[in-house]
């Protein structure tokens, strides 16, 4: 670690540090769910597996929405620093919209799977798939609630900038949820369901 990075860590804001530590905890939590999925990747004896049940291209579309939301919240962050209140609020709303689109996409995918009798109890694929993606979806939902709170706060005149520990902590959380999805998408859709053939 360079001295500046160490210096930065020394002066890290209290709420950001708390959130960062919480995210270490969440990373381990997801790691175990991911390990379970990978461990049982080829264990399906009967019933649907990832390749048969999933539509990776459709999910890829909604993935783009979630990934773009990392960019939009970064813009909101920047505009907070510049004390550009209206733009900051606009980027924040855009982030919420993109996160919402992702959740709607996940909801549609779940509906299609469930109507095709792919459930958490159908077989080991269902168990691992729904538990892992379900908990990720829950994290997106919690993120949206936090972002909405932040937006409401900004709307009623708060969040003047140039700094906000709430914004810093929540955007850190949001980036984390994004990164976890990149890993999940890579493992479930690209690798296991065969979006790209290796």
């Amino acid at each position: 670690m360079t001295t500046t990075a160490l210096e930065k860590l020394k002066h890290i804001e209290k709420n950001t540090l708390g959130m960062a530590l919480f995210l270490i905890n969440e990373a381990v939590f997801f790691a175990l769910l991911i390990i379970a999925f990978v461990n049982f990747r080829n264990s399906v004896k009967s019933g649907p597996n990832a390749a048969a049940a999933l539509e990776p291209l459709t999910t890829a579309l909604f993935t783009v929405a979630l990934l773009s939301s990392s960019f939009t919240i970064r813009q909101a962050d920047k505009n907070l620093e510049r004390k550009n209140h209206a733009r900051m609020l606009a980027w924040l709303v855009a982030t919420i919209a993109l996160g919402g689109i992702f959740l709607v996409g996940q909801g549609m995918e779940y509906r299609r799977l469930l109507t095709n009798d792919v459930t958490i109890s159908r077989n080991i694929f269902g168990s691992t798939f729904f538990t892992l993606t379900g908990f990720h979806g829950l994290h997106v939902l919690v993120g949206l609630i936090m972002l909405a709170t932040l937006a409401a706060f900004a709307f009623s005149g708060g969040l003047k900038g140039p700094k906000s520990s709430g914004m810093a902590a929540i955007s850190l959380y949001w980036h984390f949820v994004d990164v976890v999805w990149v890993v999940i998408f890579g493992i479930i859709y690209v690798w296991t369901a065969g979006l790209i053939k290796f």
Partner: protein
Amino acid sequence: MTDIPLVPETTRPLPTLGSSEGLISWVASVDHKQIGIMYLISSFLFFVVGGFEALLMRTQLAQPNATFLSPEAYNQIFTMHGTTMIFLVVVPMLIGFTTYLVPLMIGARDMAFPRLNALSFWALVFGGLMLYYSFIGGGAPNAGWFSYAPLSERPYASTNGLDYWALGLLVVGVGTVAAGINTITTIWKLRAPGVTIRRLPLFVWMSLVNSFLIIGALPALNASLVMLLADRMLNAHFFAPAESGSAVLWQHFFWAFGHPEVYIMVLPAFGIISEVIPVFSRKPIFGYAFVAGSTVGIAFLSFAVWAHHMFAVGLGRPWDLIFGASSMLIAVPTGVKIFNWIATMWGGAIRFTTSMLFAASFLITFTIGGISGVTFAVVPVDWQVTDSYYVVAHMHYVLFGGTMFAVFAGAYYWFPKMTGRLLSETLGKWHFSLTFIGFNLTFFVQHFLGLMGMPRRVATYPDLPNWGLLNLTSTAGAFMLGVASLVFFWNVTASWRNGKEAGDNPWQAWTLEWATTSPPPIYNFDQVPPVKSRRPLWDLAHPENPDSRPRKPKVEQTDQ
């Protein structure tokens, strides 16, 4: 610092309530001292419950072929005993000390997140109540504290006991994680000027490392519990081998949490010992950097030894060798500390207060537990004694002879700070003697029972030569421990009301918590004394020979 209030002033979180509202000032408190004390009291109450369960088991085992408890009841009671002692006693008791002491030791006013602190505590209480609700909710959990699959799956455990177990532990676990986050942030952000990382009291060091272990290990438990609950409630198949799931995966996941957990249950105890021994030996700790550094070593290694709980599963020779070696390795940093503490006592002017007696016997009993622990790293030995009373003896030497002895040492040491009154030394010596004799009587003979092949977790045993006698000895010791706990309880309640006034610094200790009044005011310090070394109060009392100045002639630092 003359006007000593008898109980800590309250935070008055609700402005409409006067100071006469005693109970609400505790229930609604976000003050780290009140929350710390509530942590200690609740975990002591759970200790009484868990101890009562232990006595039920020992009564059943006093004689061969006994029928005092049915096998079904016995299964529930040993599961609840283990779960209670680990999750509701040992871990929260140490967190209680951490919550109370860390802000004082670093010269802070409170924890970094006071409301989160209250949430942690209440999560413990309600998680514990949820676990115990199982007794009236259809039967307590009965698959042991590590709830191996597939025994813990719905077809084999059809009552709701294991659901309450998993849900209760999830709630407790969330609180524990929050406490870990809170502790790290507090230590990182709220140190008073001069309290550098290299000058932190060792208890704070241990709490810091411990909190990292918590946020690294507890989520593994939480994830495992979530998967178990999915299996049980939603008919998923994670740990059901018949449906392509894997029972061994549960073991890997659980012990990935479970072994770091072992150190979560002992690191703050090391911290307590590292505070108590120097003060009562009138010498600074020997090899501060080694005590702190070896703890970091333990923390890393603790994530690489989990499979030594699983040698009997048949992981294959390479894995057995790797985990055997790493398990032997982790004994080294622990051994380093034992030598540090002995060297601290060496040549010191030792005062054998009750606190010091517990700390000194910790060195003996914990070392016995450590040595029997290393024997498990030898895989064939593990195969021979696994799931026998040898394991029971080992872990109680570590957890009772280790952690609980340290907790008692800490209780006698810091009780004066928390209440302004000293615990009775006379009752304390009775408490210590009964505990020491009772403990060794209970658990030492269990080594032999284990080596003779007596399996753990079985409700009764046949009348084999000496088994009855050894078990009766163990039971007698257990009841002696019960009496010892009553003495301690009596000591605490009586001394809290009528104990001798302690004053600010009854032990002539050197760390910051002794610089304020006993009990400390709500804001902790009128003024944090200047901190220029690891022993700020020594510097204050000995301006002619402070730690903070490099000495020209090496002066012996013992008090006269």
